[in-house]
């Protein structure tokens, strides 16, 4: 069996397997699962890393197969990527030289004449990269939409006479561009339907602005109802909502931990979590992405050695992770993490920005996806931006925690509260997902999203692209590697009326640039098929089909074929 950190159980799990009564080898079904899994894994001992956890190995931890794949960067594209960055850097130096000696006009912010001898402000790599690489391909970002960002959208056409330093709008509107970039997982970003009507009605009654903070005079009865609804939706005691998702993380982590506390955060956490962690003043230690062995090692070291100089025990240890990581499309290993946190008595902060509403048979997020108890996660945080079509964030957990946050969180005390139509949009969409509005629209959308995600991912992998992440996640990152290909891919897709998001250097490691697709429940199968055929065509044109893996049958299918063949008692 592949000896990877994920398959080695934490020591506490050994007792759990024996508790079952039957050892896995005695139960015929588990033996056949183990056997066909072993057979499959012998075929695919290739340089790519693919981790499959079958039920037999973890006993009670994973109730369904957890398949993630991160194919290794092939050598030739990596060499060409470094080469192209080298060439672009040389030309960047040339242009900077021309700007310095005033041979050409400098269009970007620079120091004034009087400040030439001061400490330079714009000489670091980030500014160099922005001036010389980002601006050249900047027409692929900040595209103005002139309508609702649903499954299709309308874009304003722009041209640039001076190579993206300035933009001019021609006045034409590109109609019905297929939208593969909006975080519209359940399709609630719409201007018709029950949610929009409810929001319009409430605007007539309450207006749009709240003109105060939650603590002063900005606490509407709709806010109270929203919080009770969120608590019921997640299955916890109580919840609290904030006006902005980024501010929820960055303003509440400082309220939860301070000096003398330890924050263990994942390598690839979002900027809001990193900012909140740094603002809090706690010690921060980083563990490898989704790697339970690395986390366990850090926990053991922290408990044994205590705080850095005084060796006192830590006041608290808070593990900060996300449900779905938006740049990788990977899902957190929640069962193992909860087992670890219980064993080492740490607290868990789970940021479900992308996974709430998008995962799980009932749409309740990553806790529902794994079938776990929501009371095990100490602080559940999420945003309303992605699946609910609104804006804002929430924190949910035990009643005492939320009461504490109401008076100690910066966001609750100083930031103005959520606007009434946005609150109403969340309330209506959440009731729709729960099925309380009397229809099955919400339930259908959750199932449709799950089907769409698996269908899209499988087809892209079959075509030969390198796709990262878990098989079930609706976020699909497709590797591009070279900086020129980010621009080429995005422009060619727009020519064929599909809008995609390309992601490059500061958000990802420098050679691993990617295009990130976000699948929506409102994409019908025809739309997905059209998108797939266009992506294949552009992939051939731009030469993006790097994958060297053969298409393997999924784990589910191999169970169907020979699950009863190996039972011999």
């Amino acid at each position, binding site marked *: 069996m592949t000896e990877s950190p994920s398959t080695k159980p934490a020591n506490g799990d050994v007792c759990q397997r024996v508790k079952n009564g039957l050892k896995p080898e005695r139960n015929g079904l588990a033996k056949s699962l183990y056997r066909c899994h072993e057979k499959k894994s012998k075929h695919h001992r290739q340089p790519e890393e693919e981790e499959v956890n079958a039920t037999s190995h973890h006993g009670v931890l994973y109730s369904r197969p957890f398949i993630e794949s991160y194919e290794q960067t092939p050598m030739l594209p990596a060499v*060409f990527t470094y*080469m*192209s*960055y080298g*060439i*672009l850097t040389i*030309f960047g130096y*040339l242009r900077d030289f021309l700007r310095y000696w005033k041979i050409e006009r400098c269009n970007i912010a620079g120091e004034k004449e009087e400040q030439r001898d001061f400490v330079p402000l714009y000489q670091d790599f980030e500014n160099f990269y922005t001036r010389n*690489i980002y601006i*050249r*391909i900047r027409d692929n970002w900040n595209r103005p939409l002139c309508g609702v960002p649903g499954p299709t959208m309308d874009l304003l056409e722009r041209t640039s006479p001076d*190579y993206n330093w300035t933009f001019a709008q021609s006045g034409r509107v590109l109609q019905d561009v297929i939208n593969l970039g909006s975080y519209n997982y359940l399709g609630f970003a719409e201007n018709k339907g029950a949610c929009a009507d409810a929001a319009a009605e409430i605007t007539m009654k309450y207006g749009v602005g709240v003109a105060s903070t939650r603590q002063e005079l900005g606490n509407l009865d709709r806010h109270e109802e929203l919080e009770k609804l969120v608590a019921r939706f997640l299955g916890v005691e109580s919840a609290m909502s904030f006006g902005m998702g980024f501010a929820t993380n960055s303003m509440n982590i400082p309220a939860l931990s301070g000096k003398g506390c330890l924050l263990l955060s994942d390598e690839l956490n979002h900027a809001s979590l990193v900012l909140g962690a740094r603002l809090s003043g706690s010690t921060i230690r980083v563990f490898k992405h989704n790697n339970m062995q690395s986390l366990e090692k850090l926990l053991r070291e922290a408990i044994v050695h205590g705080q850095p100089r005084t060796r006192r025990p830590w006041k608290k240890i808070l593990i900060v992770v996300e449900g779905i990581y938006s740049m990788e499309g990977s899902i957190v290993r929640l069962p193992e993490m909860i087992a670890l946190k219980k064993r080492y008595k740490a607290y868990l902060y789970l940021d479900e920005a992308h996974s709430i509403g998008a995962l799980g048979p009932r749409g309740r997020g990553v806790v529902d996806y794994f079938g776990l108890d929501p009371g095990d996660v100490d602080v559940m945080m999420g945003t309303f931006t992605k699946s609910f079509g609104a804006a804002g964030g929430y924190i949910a957990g035990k009643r005492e925690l939320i009461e504490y946050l109401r008076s100690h969180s910066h966001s609750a005390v100083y930031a103005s509260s959520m606007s009434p139509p946005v609150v109403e949009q969340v309330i209506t969409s959440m009731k729709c997902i729960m099925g309380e509005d009397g229809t099955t629209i919400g339930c259908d959308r959750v199932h449709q999203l799950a089907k769409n995600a698996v269908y899209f991912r499988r087809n892209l992998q079959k075509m030969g692209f390198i796709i990262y992440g878990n098989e079930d996640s609706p976020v699909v990152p497709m590797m591009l590697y*070279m*900086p*020129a*290909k980010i*621009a*080429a891919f995005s422009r060619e897709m727009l020519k064929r009326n599909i809008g995609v998001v390309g992601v490059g250097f500061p958000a990802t490691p420098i050679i691993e640039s990617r295009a990130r697709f976000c699948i929506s429940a409102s994409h019908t199968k025809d739309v997905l098929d059209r998108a797939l055929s266009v992506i294949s065509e552009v992939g*051939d*044109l*731009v*030469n993006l089909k790097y994958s060297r893996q053969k298409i393997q049958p999924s784990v589910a299918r191999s169970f169907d074929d020979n699950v009863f063949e190996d039972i011999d008692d």
Partner: protein
Amino acid sequence: MNFKNLKEYLAWLYYQYLLITGIYVLEPWEKSIFNSILFSVITMVIYTSYVFVPIHVRLALEFFSGIFGGQPESTMALMN
């Protein structure tokens, strides 16, 4: 990918060269500078190899045949 004629195929190859080297994002005068430098370097390499490689190969062959083939000749000359 279906290419109707050779010209289209060559255009696609040039597009791949632009993407791989990263020249695709540069302005036309920068593309010309890079292309002319690369073209002159390749021309010089081809010219040098055309002029000098046969001479070097002939000298190398003479050197190696001097080591292996030359010995029996000298001992025979000594005997005689």
